[in-house]
């Protein structure tokens, strides 16, 4: 019998599989950090975790609450600073970064700044933090988020961090280096981006999810390829390590 799991566990397990061994990943707190830790303990033991405040390759004792707390440089190879860490991204040595936001549009742009008028916002969010920097410099950016129509919008009200901006060629025209969004992992599916148009494209549906459900929960028209895959569910091994070693206090996986 297949093991039971919740949607947060599903997203973390799926995201962890995209992080290749021997690569570098810049993470925040929460689910992205759990995905990177899980990947280290399953398929990618030499995955290098980086934190924007300066923690380089820590042996995380438990999930950090801040990207600058003590855990982020526990048995690290270096307790550096933000400039050290960000210049590592700038010169092209950081492979993956995880981003999050209130809105994401069909070219993978992200809004984490404001909803409504900038000068008198309806809702003010934190802003870029280091997200715009990561989205500009890292080779492949990833997003883990709940799939809903209010989040997946045709056009972000405010583009905090760049995806493919307005589509093919737009990053290059703006002066951004090669890079951009790679995979979007939600509670319903995995999305990638069309090679030609750079628009968001469905890649695989999670077990039990039908295409119509994904379409209904997306506020724009997704590119639908001829063949859509099925996401492999979390394995028993992944779930055991996630629950026992990565997040035993259920700080993240308890949120689902």
């Amino acid at each position, binding site marked *: 019998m297949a093991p039971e799991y919740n949607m947060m566990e599903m997203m973390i397990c799926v995201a962890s599989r995209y992080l290749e061994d021997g690569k570098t990943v810049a993470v*925040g*707190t*929460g689910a992205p950090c759990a995905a990177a830790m899980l990947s280290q303990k399953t398929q990618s033991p030499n995955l290098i975790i980086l934190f*924007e*405040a*300066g*923690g380089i390759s820590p042996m995380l*004792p*438990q999930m*950090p*609450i*801040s*990207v*600058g*707390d*003590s*855990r*982020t*440089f*526990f048995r690290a190879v270096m*307790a*550096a*600073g*933000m*400039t050290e860490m*960000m210049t590592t991204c*700038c010169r092209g040595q950081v492979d993956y970064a995880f981003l999050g936001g209130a809105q994401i549009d069909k070219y993978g742009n992200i809004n984490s*700044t404001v909803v409504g008028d*900038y*000068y*008198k*916002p*309806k*809702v*003010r*969010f*934190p*802003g*870029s*933090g*280091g*997200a*715009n*920097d990561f989205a*500009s*410099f890292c080779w492949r950016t990833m997003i883990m988020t709940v799939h809903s129509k209010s989040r997946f919008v045709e056009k972000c009200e*405010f*583009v*905090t*961090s*760049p995806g493919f*901006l307005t589509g093919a060629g*737009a*990053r290059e*025209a*703006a*002066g*951004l*280096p090669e890079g951009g969004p790679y995979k979007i992992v939600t509670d319903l599916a995995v999305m990638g981006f069309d090679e030609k148009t750079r628009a968001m494209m469905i890649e695989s549906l999670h077990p039990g999810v039908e295409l119509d459900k994904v379409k209904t929960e997306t506020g724009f028209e997704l590119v639908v390829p001829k063949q859509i895959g099925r996401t492999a569910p979390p394995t028993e091994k992944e779930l055991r390590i996630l629950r026992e070693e990565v997040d035993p206090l259920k*700080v993240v996986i308890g949120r689902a």
Partner: protein
Amino acid sequence: MKVLDQGVNPIFMDPDPDQAREFFRKKTRAMVDKRMTEKEAVEKFIPDGCYLGIGGFGANRIPTAVIHEILRARRKNLGFLGHTSTHDFELLAAGKCLNRLDAAYVVGLEARGLSPNARRYMESGELKVTEWTNYSLAVRLKAAAEGVSFGIVRSMLGTDTFKMSGAKVIECPFTGKKFAAVPALWPDVAVIHVHEADMYGNSVFRGISVADMELSRAAKHLIITAERLVTNFTIRNNPTATSIPFYLVDAVVEVPYGSYPGNMPYLYFSDEEHLAQWMKVEKDPKEFEKFLDHYIYGVSCFEEYLERCGGLKKLKELQKLESLVDKG
């Protein structure tokens, strides 16, 4: 150099390096006793209207005692470097101390959520805000520390973050590629919490530096709060460890547990219960007023705040939660 595009929001501080050099020319190099209380430091170096930067990372190695004193002194119309700021911004928003803000990360407390009161403060529209990113603000400080008028980044290009910034897109004279020029930023005053300092201001912090190397060298005035004071001999005995030399420093304030309720690497972890209490009580403005009276306005000093938060017993618990062991 051709300017191809520019952000629409104001630059709050003059990026002219020669004005800054003129200031630093006159700043004393005397190795004198700079010890004072946080109250004296705020009185002397943080007047109404000045532009302030806070070291550390939001709720990690932050100078809480001085920020509380800024609130108690009812400082108004400050400019603020909203760089990786979490509990520090939450405090300044609680005191309504600001009128202009360079924002890279504000109102959030990372995995803990968003501060309801800081959000209300931002959503009121009463602050002048210019948008940046964490790295581009660090580069603005780095340019200031280097004595040049701007730094160069590839951040922000093509986004609304750029549109709402004060940056300019320029063309590289060598490659013809586009970059964002960001103006040097010399804060009037910065406050940084460290592990150890001598009475002259020679300071040692351990763990990640965040942007404190840049901030300490860019700020015109620098207040150091230290977990403990050490002798000048201790500093000279291990100069490799010094993060900040004395001639950058204007005031030295000894504040044990000075980063509370934030984390101080190697010493104590953050008080997550207290930080959660802040966010909860902020939902109701009236309750929040009472809360602020109890913890900040109604106490005379930082030690009294620590007592109200559980005192030594609580601090010992937080020491146990800290994962890094001090090798001193």
